[in-house]
């Protein structure tokens, strides 16, 4: 790694700090401006002022706003995240520790499906530009792109768990298995392998299929289009013509030369799409009752659980920042013009 690249990456890391700070500050105040508060959401609307004050005091909500704000920032800096205001007032670290693995376990297969399906069919369409298969792929991608996630999820549920009951409707594992399931990492697939619990593994994978395909497909549409457009441009570039004039097989020109160079713009999109992926994860988790961070966030926003929402958003932001950093590194890896 050259020194200029290192400097670039360090700058990028340092830049994420103000970015995350601005975001969490925004969330801190937006949450408090929203009508409703964690007291009413838990004790109901007809609670007496005295009872409310007791709870308010316990949760530290009676303190001045700036104290709460700096307290929150300190929790972030120390990576302590504080405790939730609702639902048992547990440490947020523990709550996210259970849910984050669930989300990651869902997004990894999803993004793999997206990348493989999107990039390959985009490249294939570009190679067969203006042939029927190209039109078919484009039509499919537009169709997929315009179907809302929850609708696609619902469709899958109706077909594959109601009409032809081969896949579980929702959740991460069969309830029966779950009661005696020993969770170490909270990645159910990994846990069941570690404990040699094969029925649990089968159930975990079975539960993953529909949600990850739903989420993966939802993001595929954009990828097909992006890959196709960039590939078409790349296939018209001089070095491809030169390669053709050297007798390099068409297949190699498309899938090796052009595709590798197309990865550069695609990676940028992949980084940008990560935020959209998280949004998609929220919808997918809601549709499939998947106990991940997305659903957690939605639940806690409803309960006006200030600290939980703030911490979750901060974690999201850090994730997005980390991913885009990773993209930059990959970028440099793929494109020698950046590396040297």
């Amino acid at each position: 790694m050259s020194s200029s690249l290192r400097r670039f990456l360090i700058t990028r890391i340092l830049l994420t700090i103000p970015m995350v700070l601005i975001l969490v500050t925004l969330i801190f105040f937006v949450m408090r401006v929203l009508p409703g508060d964690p007291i009413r959401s838990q004790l109901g609307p007809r609670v007496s002022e005295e009872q409310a004050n007791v709870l308010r005091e316990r949760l530290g909500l009676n303190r001045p706003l700036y104290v709460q704000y700096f307290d929150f920032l300190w929790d972030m800096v120390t990576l302590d995240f504080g405790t939730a205001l609702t639902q048992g007032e547990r440490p947020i670290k523990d709550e996210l520790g259970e849910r984050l693995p669930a989300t990651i376990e869902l997004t990894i297969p999803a993004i793999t499906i997206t990348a493989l399906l999107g990039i390959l069919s985009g490249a294939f369409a570009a190679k067969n530009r203006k042939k029927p298969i190209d039109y078919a792929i484009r039509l499919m991608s537009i169709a997929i792109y315009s179907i809302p996630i929850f609708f696609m999820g619902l469709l899958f549920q109706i077909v594959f768990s109601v009409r032809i009951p081969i896949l579980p409707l929702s959740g991460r594992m069969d309830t029966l298995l779950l009661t005696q399931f020993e969770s170490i990492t909270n990645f159910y697939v990994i846990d069941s392998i570690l404990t040699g619990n094969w029925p649990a593994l089968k159930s975990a994978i079975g539960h993953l299929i529909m949600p990850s395909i739903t989420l993966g497909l939802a993001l595929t549409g954009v990828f097909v289009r992006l890959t196709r457009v960039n590939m078409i441009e790349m296939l018209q570039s001089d070095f491809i013509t030169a390669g053709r004039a050297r007798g390099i097989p068409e297949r190699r020109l498309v899938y090796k030369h052009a595709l590798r160079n197309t990865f550069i713009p695609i990676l940028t999109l992949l980084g940008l799409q990560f935020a959209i992926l998280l949004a998609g994860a929220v919808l997918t988790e809601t549709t499939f009752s998947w106990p991940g961070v997305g659903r957690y966030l939605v639940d806690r926003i409803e309960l006006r659980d200030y600290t939980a929402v703030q911490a979750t958003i901060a974690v999201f932001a850090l994730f997005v920042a980390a991913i885009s950093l990773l993209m930059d590194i990959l970028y440099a890896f793929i494109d020698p013009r950046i590396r040297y």
Partner: protein
Amino acid sequence: MEEKQLLAQIRNLSVEYKTRLGQVSAVDGVSFDIYKGEILGLVGESGCGKSTMGKALMRMIQPPGKITDGQIIFQGEDIMTYDDNQMRDFRGRKVSMIFQDPMTSLNPTQRVDEHIIEAIQVHESQTKTEEALTRAEKMIRKLGMQRRRMNSYPHQLSGGMRQRVMVGLGLVLNADLIVADEATTSLDVIVEAQLADQLKDIREEFGVSLLVITHNIALVAEISDRIVVMYAGHVMEIADVEPIFDNPLHPYTRGLLKSIPNIKLVDTEELYKMPGEPPNLTHPPSGCRFHPRCPRAMPICKTYEPDLEEVSSGRFVKCWLYIDHPEKESETIKVEA
């Protein structure tokens, strides 16, 4: 002089592009020969079909273009009859091409050695990587580049070096013909001269034929053995270098040479500007395609297209001035510039 051996014969080749404005007749009934080990210059104004000709020679015309007629006989075989596999083998192994823009003609994510090794292995699948690497190294050194350049990416090389890599990619497979389409145009003058010299050396050393496509007449005068002059998709004149510069026969060749500052013609007073514009090839002029601009045009030129005739040994001209025709004797028409 020893007998020249034929490498390729282009016969009656036509290429058309389908556009919204109609068929562009970019190359029309072109015939010429390429001999073994010669440097053949292909010159003409912008848009006269030089690049199209170069690409057609390798059957690399992409839609909306199409070779509509003709034969390309290479070492005795008509490559127009080749299937895709034969064509793929032909490209790179028999004919190789260097392009105008050295910045973009190499894969930006591939190192120099990877380019060369790939070219070798694509055509000789049994060649081991180490052996290919040795050959690549030899080639790089022969082209006057340091060995460490093997590990460079294209963006780390100068334009001249990149063009040499392109040349090397052809030579390493022992191509019989290298087509260089404006290969020196984007280089600065000194690098251009170096590359031109190198092309000559390469011809000596490898016995390869070169088709140098350019609108730089000075370059052609400097390095070519023979010249093909194209105008509006037609070959107008073919001749050895000295005779054509001493005594251009075709009016277009005359105009072309007169418009070059550093070439001495008998009666050059000031730089000549050829009247008119190159024609629109969707509706090429009738008869001789040069007639609207020709200072010596005759009535017949408008109606009948002259053939490309051999007027003396190895010298071909496509002009009524050198061919007899019953309707030829009429008053010369005036041409407005």
